[in-house]
């Protein structure tokens, strides 16, 4: 038994490594080649389970915006880190992810390009029960704050927020609580939690909790969710990128114009399990709409990336020591597919 175990273990490790590398083989791109007259198949990765938050993309599908561009879009649901890696290897061509993650990934050599902004405001909030008396960033000093983990938008948002008030991680007690913010806060296990502006505050209020929130976007500038592709797709199939971005941005505009209709369409088809929570989800959508718009988008159209935001984001992430290497901002994002 013992004689065989270690060689077998080693072999298994080697095989696992080989298998992990396997699918990343010669980057084939998400879409098939061939100039068949039918629609072009393309996969769009979304960084979470099917959820009403992705309504703009579901609506672009349901209203036929993708179809009108000659695209046959298939949604893939995974985590945003995984989808960025898959786009980086060329296994997928398109996904939706946060600008700060794109910057971190670029700094590690993942060849991603952000081609259309969806959120104009970084949608992260610090939430506390009203009785805790947390109203300003400075009030967080010495408090116990729950985050899902030391990764992702919630963690970056919290650290950036603390930095804006001259605080650091050591001035507060950070607790990793998984995605159990609502429970951890109501059970009193932490004094504040970090969550998504359009989710946890809505859930907590629906539970009848009196809460206070501090919005990260009121204090810090961070690039947020948008459409991401890889350098290869951008170089070799710019027309495909243009079509996908154009149709997706129409989806965003459509939800802004008719949010209730979007909910009625998306809920039964994409998230039937959530149907009993329709009223909460309606509020989630309502709270989301202003996050997708800004003065900039009023002038330059939905999807616009503000260069100042990207510069500030990169500098902030560098100060937070999250960037592995140098980042050339000209390669990170582009506005060439955004009209107006």
């Amino acid at each position, binding site marked *: *038994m*013992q*004689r065989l*175990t*270690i*060689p077998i*273990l*080693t*072999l298994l*490790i*080697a095989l696992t*490594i*080989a298998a*992990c*590398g396997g699918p*990343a*083989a010669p980057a084939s791109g998400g879409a098939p080649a061939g100039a068949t007259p039918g629609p072009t198949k393309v996969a769009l990765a979304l960084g979470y389970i099917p959820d009403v938050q992705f309504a703009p993309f579901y609506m672009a599908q349901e209203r036929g915006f993708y179809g009108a561009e000659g695209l046959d879009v298939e949604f893939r649901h995974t985590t945003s*880190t995984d989808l*960025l*890696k898959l786009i*980086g*290897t060329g296994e997928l061509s398109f996904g939706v992810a946060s600008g700060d*993650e794109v910057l*971190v*990934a670029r*700094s*590690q*050599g*993942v060849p991603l390009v952000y081609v259309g902004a969806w959120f104009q405001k970084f949608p992260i909030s610090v939430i506390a029960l009203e009785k805790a008396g947390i109203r300003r960033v400075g009030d967080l000093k010495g408090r116990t704050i*729950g985050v*899902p*983990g*030391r*990764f*992702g938008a919630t*963690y970056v948002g919290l650290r950036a927020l603390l930095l804006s008030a001259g605080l650091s991680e050591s001035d507060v007690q*950070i*607790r*990793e*609580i*998984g995605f*159990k913010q609502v*429970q*951890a806060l109501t*059970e009193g*296990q932490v004094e504040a939690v970090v969550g998504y502006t359009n989710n946890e505050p809505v859930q907590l209020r629906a539970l009848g909790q009196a809460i206070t929130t501090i919005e990260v976007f009121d204090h810090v500038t961070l690039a947020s969710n948008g459409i991401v592709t890889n350098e290869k797709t951008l170089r070799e199939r710019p027309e495909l990128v243009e079509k996908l971005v154009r149709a997706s941005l129409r989806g965003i505009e459509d939800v802004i114009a008719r949010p209730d209709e979007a909910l009625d369409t998306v809920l039964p088809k994409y998230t039937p399990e959530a149907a009993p929570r329709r009223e909460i989800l309606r509020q989630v959508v309502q709270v989301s709409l202003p996050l997708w718009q800004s003065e900039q988008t009023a002038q330059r159209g939905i999807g616009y990336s503000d260069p100042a935001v990207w510069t500030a984001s990169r500098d902030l992430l560098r100060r937070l020591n*999250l960037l*592995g290497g140098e980042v050339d901002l000209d390669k990170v994002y582009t506005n060439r597919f955004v009209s107006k």
Partner: protein
Amino acid sequence: MVSAAGTSRVREERGGGPARSEERATAQGRERRERRGMARRPWPGALTVPLSLLGGLLAWKLLVVARDYPAFVLPAPERVAARFLLALRDGTWWRHTEATLVESLAGFALGFAIATVLGYLLAKSPPLERVVAPYLAASQALPVVAIAPLLLLWFGFGLLPKVLIAALVVFFPILINTVSGLRQIDPALRDVALVFGATRRQLFTLVELPLALPTLLSGVKIGFTLAITGATVAEFIGADRGLGVLLNISNGLFDTPLLFVALLTLVGLAMLAYGLVTALERALIRW
């Protein structure tokens, strides 16, 4: 059902070929077998392990060179080694490894204690086994990743839920091996001991424990490595330290070399645990 599953695992573990299966587990036969096995162990073990490790490293390096993978997909071994040294110097590595070690050791101890006591009772009392068996089977149907968030919620975010999750994973294989280890003892041996006037305690320390020990240790071997997995899963869900946390952090930073450092540390811990129990096995079963 428990004992059936246990017996088949015992056979696998022992690798008992047809030549062995006809001999019932008499003390003499076992002793002879153990000696024979030990005499053959030293040299192939000493040579194959470094060779196979070297081969694995070489294959890894070749794969990276041949397919020209970027570091975020598959980092070359020397990049991982450099990252390891960096994590070692800045204290990252030990901070996380220590947490996983503490959780898995405590989880193992807890799981082991409960499983052996319960296992002894079940082996002695078939009616009790019939009562408990459905719950044992049910407990194995629950994926750890699914109940870990619940345990975190119920027991807070400190050390306890991680230890409980590790203990939970350890519990079943040790229980099964305890039960089957005791069950496979030839009843005739027990009768002989009783005829010669052995007390209950003597029966346990002189007959049951020594004879069940090899099977029990097989369970320990599996359980020890599983404890590490259990602790890591718990950390993955919500913790501030541990290799599961390091996996999450490095993943979020797209730092694949650091991810490999965490993974290889887990592999190393499992191999170390396995080696320790194997050494213990040799020391204990030598008499």
